């Protein structure tokens, strides 16, 4: 129950993450190199969109990652809440800034893409766009909640409650394109009946997604390790102060 103190001991996590990290980092670099080459040079320009289609290779993976990071954050939160495992809490906490970053990236690239495609940066009537902005606010609220609690154990539980409740918004975002008439195009990859995108564009897209995924894993592990180290130092200081 007194979770945050267990970091005084070396954990399995440190050893495991130390083993995974180099691979994840290497994979990130390789996949980004390959994906960006294919996306910018190797893939054909779109018949209608010309070269602006290349924004897609950033925008779409970023949007997917933004959503899946939230789900992962909620899962970690649930684990931390139920089993009171501090590592799950720290993982959830550190998902948030990364996920908010993905969300912002998708928002910006979407806006940049929208200017030539729809003739507007931003379209309020569009449910996909606005609900995605809401996702950004959810991330911000989650981060803010962590900030206002002084006691990390309390903060973890409060933030977990919020993350789990906010999970309800995810399907709203995903299905918003179906439920409302929007400018934004409906799902074209992950849909019933298979993807409708040309394979020449699909492959670079998947490689970029894998690159984003590897990047996410690397950053998350690095952040968690940094925070665990910080707690270990704090615990040592406390022990010295009380001795």
């Amino acid at each position: 129950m007194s979770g945050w103190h267990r970091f005084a001991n070396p954990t399995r996590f440190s050893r495991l993450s130390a083993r995974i990290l180099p691979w994840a980092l290497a994979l990130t670099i390789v996949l980004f190199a390959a994906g960006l080459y294919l996306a910018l040079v190797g893939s054909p320009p779109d018949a209608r969109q010309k070269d602006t289609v290349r924004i897609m290779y950033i925008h779409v993976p970023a949007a997917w990652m933004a959503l899946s990071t939230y789900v992962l954050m909620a899962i970690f939160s649930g684990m931390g809440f139920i089993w009171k495992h501090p590592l799950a809490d720290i993982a959830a906490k550190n998902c948030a800034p990364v996920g908010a970053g993905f969300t912002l990236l998708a928002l910006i690239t979407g806006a940049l893409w929208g200017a030539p495609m729809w003739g507007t940066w931003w379209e309020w009537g569009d449910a996909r766009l606005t609900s995605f902005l809401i996702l950004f606010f959810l991330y911000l609220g989650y981060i803010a909640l962590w900030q206002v609690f002084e006691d990390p154990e309390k903060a973890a539980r409060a933030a977990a409650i919020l993350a789990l409740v906010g999970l309800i918004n995810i399907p709203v975002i995903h299905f918003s394109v179906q439920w409302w008439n929007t400018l934004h195009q409906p799902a074209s990859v992950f849909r019933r009946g298979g993807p409708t995108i040309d394979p020449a564009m699909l492959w670079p897209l998947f490689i970029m997604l894998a690159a984003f995924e590897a990047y996410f894993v690397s950053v998350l592990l690095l952040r968690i390790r940094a925070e665990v180290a910080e707690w270990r130092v704090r615990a040592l200081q406390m022990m010295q102060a009380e001795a």
Partner: protein
Amino acid sequence: MPNAGIIGLTVDNLTCRRGEHEVFAGLSCSVHPGDVLYLRGPNGAGKSSLLRILAGFIAPAAGAVGWDGEDVAVDPLAHRSRLHYVGHLDTLKPVLTAAENLSTQAAMLEEQADVDTALRRFGLGNLRDLPARFLSAGQRRRLALARLAAVPRPLWLLDEPTVALDAGSVERLETLIAEHRATGGMAVIATHTDMNLPGAYTLELEGRQRVAAP
């Protein structure tokens, strides 16, 4: 583990941690029907924290609190229904009258309650229709304590109950506690001042956790 067969409140090897600071550790004691336990110790020793653990508001970092031999964490609702907690805060709504404050509290705690008798026991009879915002410090405190008299519950957890009370009110409280004990009630009382409760045990906090004989 709380020992089976023992009647009353048992505290078993309790550790309390607030933030990163360990307030006390390995604390054990028990309170049986008719017992009063004083919690004593300097400011910051953990008296208030212990009371909140006993009330089930804070989960202990280690150890357990038991009732009649069973860990109270098993059925927290049953535990919370058997105790009174009177802390530093006065739990009063300034816009409600003294009688309304007490009767709304009592109604939340119990189906039936004799509010007027309880008010009179604490000398608040003629203030019953005064809004709580007009009460003096000691009158507010007495009103907060009056729920002990209004709703019978076996375990009383009192955090510095005599604060702001005049001598007469302290006596009233002592009488109430004596009656409570006579009917098998128990009380754990954190205090810096002396009260007149014969046969009370004392738990000294801060480092040397030990139970002194009365």
